[in-house]
């Protein structure tokens, strides 16, 4: 029997995503992902000063705001041939690390954990048992039975108040929840601790970026004055604050996040064989140890893996018109040269063309256009981006750090590398790279202090800041690894103004509709074969989609006061 189900909206993600799936005999046989993005951003940027682009793109959403700003300054620096001082590279790395650690921890505990952790079950746990588990898995000091009893009471009170709030959208009691009550309580306690912790670590962005929650960047380096002894600059006192936040972050990741991940995973090993989907993985790479322009020095390496063949890493050239392209065969856009064309982002077009049904509607017409997300391809291949891709590309590239941490996790869970190609693998990869980033941040901090103490306090290269020094026409690209995956901006500059600006964001790679050859993208592919025990509570779909950490910022769907689906905007 074939049954069509719709999950709309997928909750606990950024933005609005709709999944339609066909279930045959309890398993998903086909799936369609439909999303909405503020592609109009590209229209706002046209005609503006390229040095201002970072400030505008940073506003696109509130989750990884600074990643867009970072990518934008990289694109403009690439176009204008600007090299930035080593300290600026280090500070950008530290801000990158802060957003990553915050974002991954928030994803694990606050957006994804409730797919695996039954909050209601935690209320019936024995706090003594939770305490014993905690002491067994790590040295984290908050481990007494009293502490867990207090947490339990606090959550009980919260639930009894009727203000379910953050816990309102769970499928509590669903039989796919497998954790014993004591482990559920452990996770709930850390849900609360992670909230406390995450608001501290983001302060690093405000210290260096001067402003919060949308920090400042500048083309040519960083806009912060650093002087160890100066009261009004970023001085030793403030740097010590950064250092202590970085040390705390490493402790939290090593003693809470990773032990929890490894404690929960054994209950869900079946998910190491579900949700794999695509067999191609791409990473642009990031975390430069020298200049960002030197791809060989990236700690998170750049490349593509095809057919899960870890013996070969294919190089990526973001300027080659035959490599990265965007298609719109199933997206609500039109191209001047025809909707069957695949355009490189330098020549990208953003012309809306909504042909979907008028709301309210039952189902989308998936034979035609069915999403606001364009469909990007690398040399015609559908590829997955995100933490799993980064770890796989790094593993295959022979990165010592990445091989070590991946090997540690596989060993502890007693599974082979094939387990990585799954929903569980994706969730694990996010934790593992957090371990690495926490350490790299401490390394970069030490390097920055070393530079400053040796008298190098340069953070900005102003040589080509003035438009008079620019060529009349220039084009450039900026690549980065946002927490959710490969992010790129392409900019064309003409007569000192932005002539064209295109963003290809991670969730576009993963959430896009089929391409002209009917190849599925990552979300759609990953759902095939997923069991769905209860079509009215499609927890399994949510698990796999959440494992990608989707971010469809600035969606155009709106809700009425009761939070029900109300209206869909057809135009921006």
């Amino acid at each position, binding site marked *: 029997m074939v049954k069509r189900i719709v999950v709309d909206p997928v909750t606990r993600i950024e933005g609005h995503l709709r999944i339609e799936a066909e279930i045959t005999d309890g398993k998903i046989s086909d799936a369609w992902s439909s999303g909405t993005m503020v592609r109009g951003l590209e229209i706002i940027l046209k005609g503006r000063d390229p040095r201002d682009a970072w400030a505008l793109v940073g506003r696109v959403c509130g989750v990884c705001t600074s990643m867009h700003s970072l990518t934008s300054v990289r694109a403009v620096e690439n176009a204008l041939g600007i090299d930035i001082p080593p300290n600026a590279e280090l500070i950008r790395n530290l801000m990158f690390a802060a957003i990553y650690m915050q974002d991954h921890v928030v994803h694990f505990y606050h957006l994804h954990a409730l797919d695996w952790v039954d909050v209601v079950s935690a209320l019936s746990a024995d706090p003594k048992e939770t305490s014993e588990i905690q002491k067994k898995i790590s040295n984290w000091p908050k481990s007494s039975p009293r502490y867990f009893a207090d947490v339990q009471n606090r959550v009980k009170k919260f639930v009894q108040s009727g203000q379910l709030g953050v816990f309102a959208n769970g499928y509590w009691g669903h039989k796919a929840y497998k954790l014993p009550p004591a482990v559920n309580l452990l996770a709930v306690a850390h849900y609360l601790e992670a909230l406390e912790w995450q608001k501290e670590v983001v302060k690093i962005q405000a210290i260096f970026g001067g402003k919060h929650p949308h920090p400042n960047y500048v083309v040519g380096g960083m806009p912060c004055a650093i002087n160890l002894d100066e009261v009004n600059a970023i001085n030793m006192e403030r740097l010590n604050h950064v250092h202590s936040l970085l040390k705390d972050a490493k402790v939290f990741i090593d003693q809470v996040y990773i032990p929890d991940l490894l404690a929960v995973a054994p209950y869900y090993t079946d998910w190491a064989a579900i949700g794999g989907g695509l067999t191609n993985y791409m990473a642009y790479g990031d975390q430069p140890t020298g200049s960002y322009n030197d791809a060989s020095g990236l700690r998170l390496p750049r490349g593509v893996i095809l057919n899960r063949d870890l013996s070969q890493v294919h190089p990526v050239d973001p300027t080659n018109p035959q490599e990265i392209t965007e298609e719109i065969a199933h997206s609500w856009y039109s191209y001047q040269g025809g909707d069957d064309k695949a355009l490189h982002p330098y020549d990208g077009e953003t012309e809306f063309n909504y042909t979907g049904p008028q709301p309210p509607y039952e189902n989308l017409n998936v034979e035609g256009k069915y999403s606001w997300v364009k469909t990007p391809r690398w040399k015609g291949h559908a590829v997955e981006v995100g933490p799993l891709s980064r770890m796989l590309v790094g593993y295959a590239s022979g990165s010592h750090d990445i091989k070590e941490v991946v090997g540690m996790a596989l060993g502890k869970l007693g599974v082979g590398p094939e387990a990585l190609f799954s929903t569980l693998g994706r969730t694990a990869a996010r934790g593992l790279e957090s371990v690495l980033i926490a350490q790299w941040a401490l390394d970069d901090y030490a390097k920055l202090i070393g530079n400053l103490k040796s008298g190098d306090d340069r953070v900005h290269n102003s040589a080509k800041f003035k438009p008079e020094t620019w060529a009349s026409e220039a084009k450039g690209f900026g690549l980065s690894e946002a927490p959710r995956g490969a992010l790129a901006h392409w900019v064309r500059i003409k007569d000192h103004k932005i002539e064209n600006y295109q963003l290809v964001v991670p969730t576009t790679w993963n959430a896009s509709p089929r391409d002209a050859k009917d190849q599925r993208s990552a979300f759609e592919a990953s759902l095939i074969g997923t069991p769905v025990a209860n079509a009215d509570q499609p927890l399994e779909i949510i698990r796999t989609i959440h494992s990608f950490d989707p971010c469809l910022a600035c969606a155009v769907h709106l*809700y009425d006061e009761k939070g029900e689906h109300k209206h869909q905007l057809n135009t921006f």
Partner: protein
Amino acid sequence: MGIGNILLADEGIGPKAVELLEAKGWGAKVDLLDGGTGGFHLLGDLQDYRHLVLIDATLDQNPPGFVRVIRPKFAQDYPPSLSAHDIGLKDLMDTAELMGYKPDTHLVVMSVELVQPVGMIFSPPVQAAMPQLLIEVEKILAKLLAPATVE
């Protein structure tokens, strides 16, 4: 704290109001924050203050430019936000509630229209209502700063 997305026309009234308050010198008396699309990043700010004046656009049944002051107790008292961010203001308020952060909150909202182009220019009714929005906010700030109301 003004929140909203400045790239989505009328949704940007919160950050704009903060900019105008800054220009009028309020920054010397109160902490002003352009919360943008900050989401979870703003949790610390809710913990740090006893009083919070929040400025946001709302999509309710009122005509565009309609300004009102709400005294929300729970997350569900917040009117529908224009941004459909799932990890948005309501989620933030839900979380603050869970954490026991309870700044005494005045929410000043302006109603905006459903269909808006992407862009950074306000629609005429919203532009016209900005002075009134500021008056409401300034009235609240003045009251909060008056010695009699300081606890």
